[in-house]
């Protein structure tokens, strides 16, 4: 690390689409934005090739095709699977990567931009299906065994993990403060700008210059990560029934709509993502679950009312 931050410069930022979401990169040294973007784009391309469930040429797809067989996988995929399994265990199965099979059955079987927003009813089959407990990952040798008939969705945690890793690596390589946002998952690394990174939590991730559609709040972050999960995005309709992408693994159906958005902070974006997604799935039990763990969070109910738990800051009131 040789570069130093320009002390008085305002952060510079860029946004672009990648891995099925919007990427946001901000750096405290504007001169480092271009090389940072190049590094991040390269990292995300590798992530997509390893973990995408929509690419036939991804490592993940290859492991699924060889179901039941231990397959050596890259460190990127092994790490993503490891994090997904940890998340499943930490939440008693609220976050289960095997929901991809059920997501596909409900119509979300390709990049969301290509999913028909409306369609006829889907036929669902009730059966006992392998769960995350049936996935075998030898973390020492990096061999992954996907159970037969199972598809994995690593998206719930993989993007957040990627934000964490990218923020740490970019901060080290660029030698300045870095914010990496991948959809609703944001991680920061290095020295933050004065006052911290200003992050606006809202229902749907958007450009900071665009006004939010619903209730929002700006928080300042000096470290760690923030993640928002919600049912306001990635919605589609089948047979007149509105569906969303956060499934309750216990039913295989979209989680009951109690909260439309949950935002949480933790020392990593992936930990925040685990908390926010689990709270969506836990519904009415979400706030208590978060509170008992001291996880600062902001929950927006389907009626737009806002509830905060633990150390989530109160909104500042303009003078």
């Amino acid at each position, binding site marked *: 690390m040789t570069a130093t931050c320009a002390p008085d410069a305002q952060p510079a*930022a860029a946004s672009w689409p990648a891995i099925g979401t919007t990427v946001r990169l901000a750096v405290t040294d504007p001169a480092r934005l271009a090389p940072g973007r190049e590094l991040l784009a390269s990292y995300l391309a590798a992530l997509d090739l390893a973990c995408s469930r929509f690419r036939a040429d991804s490592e993940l797809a290859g492991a699924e095709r060889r179901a039941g067989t231990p397959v050596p996988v890259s*460190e990127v995929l092994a790490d993503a699977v*490891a994090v997904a*399994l*940890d998340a499943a*265990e*930490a*939440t008693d199965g609220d976050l289960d990567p095997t929901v991809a099979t059920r997501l596909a059955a409900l119509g979300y079987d390709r990049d969301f931009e290509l999913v028909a927003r409306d369609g006829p009813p889907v036929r669902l089959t009730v059966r006992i299906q392998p769960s995350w*407990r*049936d996935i075998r*990952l*030898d*973390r020492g040798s990096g061999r992954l065994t996907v159970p037969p008939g199972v598809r994995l969705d690593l998206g719930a945690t993989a993007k957040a993990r990627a934000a964490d*890793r990218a*923020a*740490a*690596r970019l901060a*080290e390589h660029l030698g300045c403060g870095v914010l990496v*946002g991948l959809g*609703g998952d*944001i991680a920061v*690394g*290095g*020295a*933050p*700008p004065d006052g911290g*990174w*200003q*992050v*606006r*939590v*809202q229902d*749907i*991730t958007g*450009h*900071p*210059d665009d006004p939010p559609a619903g209730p929002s709040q*700006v928080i300042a972050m*000096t*470290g*760690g990560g*923030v*993640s*928002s999960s919600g*049912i306001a*995005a990635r919605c589609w309709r089948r047979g007149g029934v509105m569906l969303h992408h956060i499934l309750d693994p216990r039913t295989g159906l979209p989680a009951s709509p109690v909260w439309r958005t949950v935002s949480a902070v*933790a*020392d990593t974006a992936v*930990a925040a993502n*685990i908390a926010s997604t689990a709270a969506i799935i836990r519904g009415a039990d979400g706030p208590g679950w978060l509170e008992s763990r*001291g*996880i*600062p969070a902001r929950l927006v109910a389907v009626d737009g009312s806002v509830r905060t*738990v*633990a*150390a*989530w*800051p*109160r909104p500042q009131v*303009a003078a």
Partner: protein
Amino acid sequence: MPSNPAGPPVPPSILRRRGLNRLSAVTVGVGVASVLATGAIAAGLPGSAHNSGAGTGSTGSAPKSGAGSSGTGSGSGSQSRGTGSSSTGSGSGSQSSSGSGSGSSSSILPGATSGGAHATSGAS
């Protein structure tokens, strides 16, 4: 061995620490309470990984980012307000309501009321 905010080292805290390290391996410069928050998330993580081969249950697949200091450094400095952030004092000392004795999160503060945000976080 970092101190355990919850009491003397006992197997559950060891498990918690292992899980914390696993989840926070890439974090740098975070506040104490946010570390504790993650530790709370990770409390359900066992020390040995599920479904792994013998001896492979640690952080074998964790990134080698070189950071990873937040987990081990959090115990003792604990009551400091963290990262030297520009705390405005507006509620940060009184907002903690967790049962684990953690302080408020110093990595999250009320945001500015004017000026643009650097990023947004919502469903995507």
